[in-house]
């Protein structure tokens, strides 16, 4: 089956991101497929490449990147949620003349249509929030 996973909680604020990541890994491990991970609300902070947790804590940002890189999971951050919270890729940083971009290139900035498409196209949609 194909899963869309919606992440609404920010890393290191609630457990939602950690739960969603464990779930995503289990989807892959059980032979199912991740159609899309959609980061919404504070979930967009998972794409922040500047996150620097202590070395003895799980690096959630890198954990998502690994999932995206090794398993080809599509990681999409909602553009409206992201811009509002200062999560910008190179293109958006240029467009809004901001001094830097902080969104990892493994994350795709896209619109809410990707959430709806994910919900419609996947066999199951599971939401993690706080």
């Amino acid at each position, binding site marked *: 089956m194909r899963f869309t996973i919606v992440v609404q909680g920010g890393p290191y604020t609630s457990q939602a991101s950690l739960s969603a990541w464990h779930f995503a890994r289990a989807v892959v491990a059980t032979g199912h497929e991740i159609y899309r991970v959609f980061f919404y*609300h504070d979930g967009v902070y998972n794409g922040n490449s500047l996150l620097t947790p202590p070395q003895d804590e799980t690096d959630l940002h890198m954990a998502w990147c690994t999932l995206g890189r090794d398993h080809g999971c599509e990681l999409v951050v909602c553009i409206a949620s992201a811009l509002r919270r200062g999560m910008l890729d190179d293109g958006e940083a240029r467009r809004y003349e901001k001094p830097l971009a902080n969104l990892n290139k493994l994350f795709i900035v896209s619109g809410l249509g990707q959430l709806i498409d994910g919900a419609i196209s996947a066999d199951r949609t599971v939401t993690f929030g706080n």
Partner: protein
Amino acid sequence: MPANPGTQNAPSIGTTAGPAERPNKTLLFVQSQAPHGTLYGQEGLDAIMMGSAFTECAVLFVGDGIYQLLANQDTSLLASRNYSVSYRALADYGVEKLYCTEADLQQRGLTVADLVVTPCVIDSRALQALMTSFDVILDF
């Protein structure tokens, strides 16, 4: 990138689309948070409006979520967006089915006359049936 939707697994229960097209799933959006205290309601409403462009959508207000519809919200002092007025426009987007429960209204001393739009008031048994009747539930 995901493969072309609809070409892999059989559509799940409740879908009628043929193999070449995207399954036309119905979406139930659930608003469960009071407005302004968090951004869940406002960002949830954005998602509802987007959903209406794709497929059949309905909105269920549970618990404090019904406060999003309370009339006379004035956010001018707060400098926050008063998105309650946008619920009036939802019908123009084709989202005409709004639901809440009698119990949630009563617990909060509200009637539908206190709201900016008039949702369909249902009991808990109808709520179970409602949730089961949609293909996907999106929670905010």
